[in-house]
């Protein structure tokens, strides 16, 4: 292989890049007039909603656009050489050695039939012609670098034997094997849990500094970009709309879209009553239906007829800042510091009587060794362990925890899809924990309903939207005949602010946010009193999230519904919930009012969780806590306190109490309880994790 000469110009220089996909009908421009520059050692963030072309840029850099994709203009220079003019052989030599890419789904990037070690060793053996022994040594080193325990065992294992976080670390290790000059990360942590994500982000940052690798970091999460990158580029509908250093873009944004994006995400300080989120009106334009002039024009507050829609808008330098430019004609006229138009502020709803009471709920699953012949080893999975809480009318109770913490099992028991092993669930003082859904009366079923996570899965794809809502009404015994139910269904569409014409549409004709609204309408069809919302907005784009969240809040205020909001996103939990319950491995580790949970004293897990959530605000300073390892399996939970294997505070507890005994629920204040052995004085010493510096 050719020696890598030192090169100190920009690693990647993209100029006026345009990429189109050609279909039988038309040319679909995916990226237009995109320019950016990545200097050595610099991390560049690429932010935007789904469909804005950020991944296409990455694929363009890799020159891997598929059969239909073509670069129709501009140049991509890697270390001064134009990638567009290279032959396939030259590109092959660069890919995987000088430019490496990390994808979203780690399992899909690893060969499931090959041991990890062999996959890693391939890289130097192919690109640098190293011997097997040398390659093994390199692999071992890199695996240590990505902080995986027991590297030799790791190299011997197959991908499916590792957890998601470990797999992603292996993928990163593989990318680093050849010491690339440029690392492209395409949403590398989206499929992972928050605390695991924090670990990966920390790792990527550390490695960037150690190896001096330049990075192109693609993400939809502004907070994550703030934590990892030096510069960022905001994309909208195929165009870069604003680019600059993190500080400039976050604090002195010069494009209406960037501003709208920031106003639609819940930052500390946002409040559902006094300072509600501002959703971006309208919808993302389809690639072949882009408006003339500014793509963001139809959704922009500062739109000026005849000027913004008259012609192509070039990038303009923002004077005074370092390489900061924006694609807005009016950026010098707009008063960027003006406070947002506060829509309607609303009163905090009165919290009523207790509707739902859960006491010492336990749910165990028995997993038999073989399905055909019962007997043999039976393992017990303790999905829920002594869960107790209350939920009152018009209250939002957030249930927070990572995957495997038992929050979905809890939802299933509440819904009656599973029966409890022990303990009780009281709905209006009536026991429902042992009644399966088939045996529940219609009233009970319609009062407890659910909103699901994945908008693309929540509606039956082969039934019209109206039919699906009407079926719910029919099952709940509402309306005497189809005509009455149709009327009621149209009312429900009004309630979730969808046009009535949607009743006859098929789900595939709706966008993600619209589908989620239909899901909400369906849940409220029978006048639900308790709605379990299982991460209802986590799969939606940022600008849509705010609108759907606000809709949920509005319906809740009107119908006095109790909302059980399951989420791992603490920013949104802080914004909309009245009380928060934190779960870990089937246990409730902390419960209390939102203010109490978000302020010290914390349960050590809550503390780590708070620190892990990326916040898109430069004025926030966070304490840096990264948890070691992964969440233990519920099949084989640790002895004693469930969190003891990853706890930073374990040394503060005398003896081996943490390893032997499950801590009792300890009351700290009115309504605030934690499950921890830490002594009172140590808890009092805890410092807040999130500090807002100015303001």
């Amino acid at each position, binding site marked *: 292989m050719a020696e890598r000469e030192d090169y100190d110009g920009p690693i990647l220089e993209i100029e006026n890049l345009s990429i*189109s996909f050609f279909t039988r009908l038309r040319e679909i421009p995916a990226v237009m007039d995109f320019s950016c520059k990545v200097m050595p050692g610099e991390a560049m963030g690429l932010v935007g909603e789904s469909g804005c072309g950020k991944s296409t840029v990455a694929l363009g850099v890799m020159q891997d656009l598929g059969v239909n994709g073509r670069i129709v203009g501009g140049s991509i220079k890697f270390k001064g050489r134009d990638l567009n003019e290279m032959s396939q052989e030259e590109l092959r030599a660069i890919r995987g050695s000088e430019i490496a890419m990390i994808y979203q789904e780690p399992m899909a990037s690893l060969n499931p039939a090959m041991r990890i070690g062999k996959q890693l060793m391939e890289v130097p053996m192919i690109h640098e012609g190293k011997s097997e022994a040398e390659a093994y040594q390199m692999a071992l080193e890199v695996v240590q670098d990505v902080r995986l325990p027991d590297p030799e065992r790791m190299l011997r294992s197959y991908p499916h034997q590792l957890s998601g976080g470990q797999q992603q670390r292996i993928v990163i290790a593989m990318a680093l094997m050849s010491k690339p000059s440029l690392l492209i990360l395409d949403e590398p942590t989206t499929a992972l849990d928050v605390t695991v994500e924090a670990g990966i982000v920390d790792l990527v940052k550390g490695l960037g500094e150690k190896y001096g690798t330049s990075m192109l970091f693609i993400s939809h999460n502004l907070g994550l970009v703030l934590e990892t990158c030096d510069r960022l580029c905001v994309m909208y509908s195929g165009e870069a709309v604003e680019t600059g250093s993190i500080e400039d873009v976050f604090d002195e944004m010069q494009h209406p879209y960037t501003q709208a994006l920031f106003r639609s995400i819940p930052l500390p300080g946002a409040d559902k009553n006094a300072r509600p989120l501002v959703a971006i009106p309208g919808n993302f334009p389809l690639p072949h239906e882009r408006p003339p002039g500014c793509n963001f024009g139809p959704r922009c507050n500062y739109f000026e007829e005849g000027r913004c829609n008259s012609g192509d808008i070039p990038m303009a330098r923002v004077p005074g800042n370092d390489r900061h430019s924006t694609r807005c004609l009016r950026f010098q006229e707009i008063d960027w510091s003006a406070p947002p138009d506060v829509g309607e502020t609303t009163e905090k709803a009165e919290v009523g009587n207790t509707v739902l009471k859960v006491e010492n709920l336990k749910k165990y699953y028995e997993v038999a060794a073989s399905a055909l012949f019962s007997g043999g080893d039976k393992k017990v999975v303790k999905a829920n362990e002594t869960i107790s809480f209350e939920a009152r009318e018009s209250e939002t109770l957030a249930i927070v925890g990572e995957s495997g913490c038992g929050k979905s099992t809890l939802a299933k028991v509440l819904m009656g899809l599973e029966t409890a092993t022990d303990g009780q669930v009281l709905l209006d003082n009536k026991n429902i924990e042992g009644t399966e859904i088939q045996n529940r009366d219609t009233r009970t079923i319609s009062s407890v309903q*659910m909103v699901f996570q994945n908008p693309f899965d929540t509606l039956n794809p*082969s039934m019209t939207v109206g039919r699906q809502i009407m079926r719910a009404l029919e099952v709940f015994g509402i309306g005497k005949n189809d005509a009455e139910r149709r009327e009621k269904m149209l009312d429900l569409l009004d309630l979730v602010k969808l046009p009535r014409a949607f009743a006859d549409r098929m789900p595939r004709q709706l966008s993600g946010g619209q589908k989620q609204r239909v899901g909400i309408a369906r849940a409220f069809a029978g006048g639900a009193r308790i709605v379990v919302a299982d991460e209802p907005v986590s799969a939606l784009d940022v600008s849509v999230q705010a609108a759907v969240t606000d809709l949920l809040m509005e319906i809740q205020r009107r119908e006095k519904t109790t909302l059980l909001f399951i989420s791992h996103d603490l920013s949104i939990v802080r914004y909309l919930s009245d009380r928060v319950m934190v779960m870990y491995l089937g246990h409730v580790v902390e419960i209390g009012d939102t203010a109490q949970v978000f302020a010290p004293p914390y349960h050590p897990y809550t503390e780590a969780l708070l620190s892990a959530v990326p916040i898109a605000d430069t004025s926030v300073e966070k304490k840096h806590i990264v948890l070691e390892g992964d969440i233990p399996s519920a099949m084989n939970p640790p002895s004693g306190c469930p969190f003891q294997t990853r706890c930073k505070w374990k040394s503060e507890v005398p003896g081996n109490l943490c390893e032997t005994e499950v801590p009792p629920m300890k009351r700290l204040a009115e309504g605030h309880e934690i499950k921890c052995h830490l002594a009172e004085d140590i808890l009092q010493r805890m410092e807040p994790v999130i500090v807002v510096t100015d303001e």
Partner: protein
Amino acid sequence: MDLLTWTGALGPILNPLMLAAVAVFLLGLIGNFVLTLAGQQAGEVQINADHTLTINRTPVDYALMAMKYAVLLFLACCLAYIIGGLVQSDPMDQGILGAMGRRFLPVWIALIVLFALSITFKRKLGLYGKLFDSLIGMIGFGLVMFWMFTAIFAGTIITFGPIDVISQMRNEVPGTPLPNPDDGAYLYYLLGGDNLGRDVFSRMVMGAREVLKIAPAATLFAFMVGITLGLPAGYFGGKLDTVLTFIANLVLAFPVILLFYLLVTPEIVDAGIPTYMAAVLFLFPIIFFVVLFNSRYHTQPTKRLAYIAISLVIGFWLYSGLAFNADPLGLISMPGNILIVFVSVVFVNSPTVFRIVRGIVLDIKTRDYVAAGQTRGEGPWYIMLWEILPNARGPLIVDFCLRIGYTTILLGTLGFFGLGVSPESPDWGSTINEGRRLLTIYPHPALPPALALMSLVLGLNLLADGLREESLKD
């Protein structure tokens, strides 16, 4: 009278053209092969600065183009023979091809009407309409519908009765005129006579009717059985799944031909085993429809009653006629030997359908809309039949088309072994079997049914391919 020629009056003009087309095609093929070996590549699409596309043609492209036009020319010649047959009135001018084209006139009209209507309204016709976006799908559909219409119009297409015997015509070659025709009778055996002196052309046309009467219906029944058992196996899982899958594997492991031989053994027929099997298998469609309507309308008692009553009455009427030959109205009946074929085909096909359905259900049951159905208190059968089954339709439709093809071949095989259908039945399998004995001397009685069988199965496979391709694009 003289022997008919294959191509009639147009032959001297069109035959050289067709030969030329074949020659050009072969030259193109060889040229393409040689050029590719020599390292030439097909031209690539270039993008100009003004967002237009250009293709730089290389010799490889020209070779491919020559092949394409040769195929088109060949097809045009075939079309010309058919049109020639329609336009000219004297059979000598029409030739055998033209005369056959004329006999198929109702089929051509029906095909043209069907395609014209379908293409005009293709945007409103769902998956069926999308079929007309894919050339493969259209060709497949065309072939299938050709035989379908042939079966429907068989009565007007045939020139002689399928079992009419003219002893002088034994083993005569295609285009032989009748020695002393009756008044108004057709003057020629278009595709010759078989070893008993029956008209091969008419038997092939009537054979389409025999085959298409059994194959789609048997496949449909196999699907009913497979779906009714596969849905609960996949949805409930556990012991039920284990038992049903085990039984399905047992049936699949049993040699099919042996099973058929067993079923037609007189002792077994006398013991009534085929009837009992029919009694069980034909119950499934009734169960399917009753459960389907019951789960959907259990909240509306009057509607439910009406639908269930209708499905029970129609179901048991057909059931008594088909399974026991005891239709109270005397309209529906199935001869014993057909029943055996029918039952065997359903019996061997349903386990495969069962496994496909079970696999799809295992995937779909984890979707959120299934959970949404459960959380609003829907019964398991509603979820299986109304939430899961409609979303499994894509792969099932494709498999249905393929399976009709397999069933057709299976029926052919059965006919070839002389199983099931009556000895003089014109179905393609039996006809091939009869023609087999003198194949080296007289190939013409066996070839037409073989080609017919091949084109129908090919059409079904192409149709399935087209449907699969288009259903993925949604």
